[in-house]
């Protein structure tokens, strides 16, 4: 036992063994490259691959080591364990914000970053490169077109009046597990009163909780879910692009929550130059419209979140830290859980 | 000629009067402004000699007064000041000439002659002796109407002789008259001039006689 512990300790000291969990990993570029950039990210390889390929195409001598993990795990790796990575990409803006706020991200100023609008970078430590909108996704087969709710209030009414019909067929993030889910839920609660009524009504009907967008979308597409609430549009759009007819994005008329996908260079970066190059590459996605289009991403520079409806944009700033406060968080989660528990218990 | 001398210095006034009388002039002397005015009212004079510094006023007042009442008597101002500005001012006030004390009497004579010449206008002042007509002021000589040019010294010599025609003028006397003491000249300068004068008067009926041991005199027919 002691030997194993020692071995683990030995390995851990080299950063080979890690306490955080990863979901996926892939290497791109020149195999024997000495110039490797290690990335940890919340974005699936499926989504991000075109970008990485384009990057190694542009910089042939560089190798990209891309690791995927959940937003909580990414945060744990960087903040708690200070694992060695050159670039950290996450959709959980609040967690990225915490890293930057606590001076664990390195400052980077370049011509590319200077082009970012206000709110899309913070203290030149954390940078947003795409807009993400949280959307309402429905399974066409579950709705008549006429009854598709177009606002949150409408949705509340619909679910309340059809509890049986929607029982177990509502999907949303498990905010206890998904950092992104927690972010979207807390921002929602700030934006409108309806959030808690919605949560209550979801709980009443019976809601399935998910860790990730992909699974939610798959279940909607397969008809297991009637709808998914607060799905990231980039994921959804890919599905729509793939021509899956059962999936429909509904934009609420009251508001849409828009967040940003962000990247930062941790303080203990090893390959700073490559990290900066990658960061600049990501930030200037707008200069490669074809690439953007192929990934379904909505680049930030010189662009605006593409929506015709009213947006509640979440911007980078320390107010994102409020809901990370342990007390505040446990209060919120407890309230949320007590709403959701209703179904789980009855199930 | 009749002079009015206005001079306050008794000694100088006396001396000037005597000296002028030696040459045959008549001199009335006064020593202040008021007397001057009185005298001027009583008699007319050929020339006024006016000293500027007088006890009861400035000689210029006399000058001004006379000119104001249009009295045209020639006035020669005598003064101790050599200032040219003084001269100009006095002449502007109406004086005819200006003499600085101490002056040579020869100079006085020359100036008097000049002033009178200017003033007399067309009136002639000729002396006829024999067939010679002598203009004292002009200093010109004509023999039977023919003008004869005489040099200045010759003229003065002639004038001196003609002044007292039958009198014998001693060489010294003539030298005094001719040479204004500054130019001593040689003693036979007189003889030279007499000789010249004789030659010039050849065609006249006047004769200059040498009186041995005594001098010269001019003889008229």
């Amino acid at each position, binding site marked *: 036992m002691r030997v194993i512990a020692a071995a683990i300790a030995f390995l851990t000291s080299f950063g080979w063994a890690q306490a955080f969990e990863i979901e996926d990993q892939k290497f791109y570029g020149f195999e024997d490259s000495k110039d490797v950039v290690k990335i940890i990210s919340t974005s699936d390889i499926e989504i991000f691959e075109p970008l990485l390929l384009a990057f190694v195409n542009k910089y042939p001598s560089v190798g990209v080591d891309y690791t995927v993990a959940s937003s909580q795990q990414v945060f744990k790796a960087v903040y708690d364990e200070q694992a060695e990575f050159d670039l950290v990409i996450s959709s959980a803006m609040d967690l990225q914000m915490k890293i930057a706020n606590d001076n664990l991200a390195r400052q980077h100023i370049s011509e590319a970053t200077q082009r970012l609008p206000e709110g899309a970078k913070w203290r030149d430590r954390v940078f947003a490169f795409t807009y993400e909108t949280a959307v309402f996704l429905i399974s066409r087969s579950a709705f008549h077109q006429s009854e598709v709710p177009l606002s949150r209030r409408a949705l509340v009414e619909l679910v309340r009046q059809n509890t049986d019909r929607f029982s177990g067929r509502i999907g949303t993030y498990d905010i206890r597990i998904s950092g992104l889910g927690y972010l979207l839920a807390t921002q929602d609660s700030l934006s409108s009163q309806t959030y808690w009524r919605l949560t209550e009504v979801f709980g009443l009907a019976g809601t399935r909780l998910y860790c990730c967008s992909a699974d939610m979308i798959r279940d909607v597409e397969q008809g297991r879910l009637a709808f998914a609430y607060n799905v990231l549009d980039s994921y959804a759009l890919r599905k729509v692009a793939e021509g899956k007819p059962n999936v429909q994005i509904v934009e609420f008329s009251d508001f849409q929550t828009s967040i940003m996908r962000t990247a930062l260079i941790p303080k203990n970066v090893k390959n700073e130059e490559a990290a900066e190059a990658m960061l600049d590459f990501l930030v200037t996605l707008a200069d490669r419209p074809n690439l953007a289009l192929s990934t379904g991403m909505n680049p930030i520079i010189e662009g605006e979140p593409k929506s015709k409806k009213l947006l509640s944009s979440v911007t980078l700033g320390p107010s994102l830290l409020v809901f990370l406060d342990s007390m505040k968080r446990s209060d919120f989660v407890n309230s949320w859980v007590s709403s959701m528990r209703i179904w789980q218990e009855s199930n | 000629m009749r002079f009015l001398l206005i001079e306050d210095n008794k000694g*100088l006034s006396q001396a000037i009067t005597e000296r002028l009388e030696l040459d045959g002039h008549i001199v009335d002397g006064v020593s202040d402004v008021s007397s001057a005015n009185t005298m001027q009212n009583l008699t007319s004079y050929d020339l006024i000699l006016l000293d500027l510094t007088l006890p009861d006023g400035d000689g210029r007042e006399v000058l001004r007064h006379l000119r104001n009442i249009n009295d045209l008597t020639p006035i020669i101002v005598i003064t101790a000041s050599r200032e040219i500005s003084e001269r100009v001012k006095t002449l502007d006030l109406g004086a005819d000439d200006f003499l600085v004390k101490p002056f040579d009497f020869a100079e006085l004579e020359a100036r008097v002659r000049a002033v009178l010449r200017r003033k007399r206008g067309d009136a002639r002042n000729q002396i006829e002796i024999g067939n010679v007509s002598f203009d004292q002021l002009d200093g010109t000589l004509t023999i039977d109407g023919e003008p004869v040019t005489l040099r200045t010294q010759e003229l003065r010599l002639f004038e001196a002789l003609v002044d007292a025609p039958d009198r014998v003028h001693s060489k010294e006397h003539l030298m005094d008259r001719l040479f204004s003491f500054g130019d001593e000249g040689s003693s036979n300068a007189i003889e030279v001039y007499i000789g010249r004068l004789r030659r010039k008067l050849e065609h006249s009926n006047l004769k200059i006689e040498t009186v041995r041991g005594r001098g010269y005199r001019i003889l008229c027919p």
Partner: protein
Amino acid sequence: MSVATSTPIKGSVQRRLVLQLIFVALILTVLFVLAVRLVGERIAQSAQDSALFAAAASIASSMHSDNGELQLDLPHSAFAMLEAISEDSIFYRVSVGSRTVTGDDELSVITPASPLAERAYATEEFRGEPVRILTVPRALDVEGVFTNVSITLAHTRQGFHSTVSQIQSIATGVGIGFFIVSVALCLLASQSALKPLKSLVNAIERRGPEDLRPVNREVPSEVAPLITALNSFIVRLSGSLDKAEEFIAEAAHRIRTPMALVQTNAEIALRFAETSKSRGKIREIIVAARESSRSASQLLDHATVAFRAENPQLAPISLSELIERSISRFFPIAEMKGITLTVSPTKSNVIVAVDSLLMQSAIGNVLDNAIKYSESDTTVDISYGVLNDYGFINISDQGPGFSDGDIKHATELFFRGKKTESTEGTGLGLKIVSDALNVHNGRLEITKNGERGSCVSLQLPLHS
């Protein structure tokens, strides 16, 4: 023009004034900028601290007790407000004693200066950056237990420094602007302040050299003593000038009148002298008398010329007019001596700028000389014209002339040439002429007149 000694100049009142005013403006500007920066810093700090306090206060008011436990519902607005003010990291800690209720454990809690203080600030380093920390102590009733809670809130200094540097730039900019305006005003002010002086200088400069009126203007108080001294000097000078003139006139009168007496009486005596011996003696008396008269005259002339040379009154005059005025009184005398005076112009309308009376005196002296030394039946000729840049008046006589050696010394005081020893005279004559010419920057040249006689040439600069 008389030789004007140039006044040595050191510095300039205006320049001094301007430089000192600018220096003062510079100091004021620097003080202003420093003051604004200082004050600006204070204000910026105070504003930031107030914001921090407001946020902390709102956090404090979100505290409540729940089930005997201290609960905190961190207000989103508090952070939102701080976020809006500047782009800075925010750290917080709510603690009871050393136990952290929530927030960053490592954040220092600042002890207030006095127990009654409602807030305490400090600036420290935290997580590798300088931060401004505020601790607000609050007492909360937790289930009947009075608990002292410390709400500590901190933020980094980026916003503060950026505000301060903004203030500094504005202060510096305003300071520079202020300085430029001050410099312009300084220049204007100095011009205006010195105006009375300048106009005084102008008024005095415009005076002619002979103007001896006292300066009668209203002058600034600083210059008044100078002008008073100047005026008293003018009065004294006038007075002494007048006295000198009076003296000369008086001396002239006192010498000449007795001399006139002596001469006249001697002449009378000469008429009555009977022996050649007595004649000879009297003649000697007359010669001596004449000599002293002449000496006196020339001395007085010399004094007058020297005197007048100090303040010559220059005016343009043509040579022909000058000569006419000078020689008019000599005609009777020349005639008396049998000397012919002629005037021969070589050029008409020659203008010179001279003191007419001085030059008349000079020309008169030369003529006097020429007539005195010439014998009868000779000619004294006065010619005039232009030579190079000078107008000349040449008086030539047929007298004894000068020997070569004598010419050099002719203008020395009391010099009398070898050939003139038999005639009386003081030898001052040519000195007088030379002095008069010097006043006008003119020249005197004496040359031989051919075989017999001399030519005295008076040369004067032409009037431009």
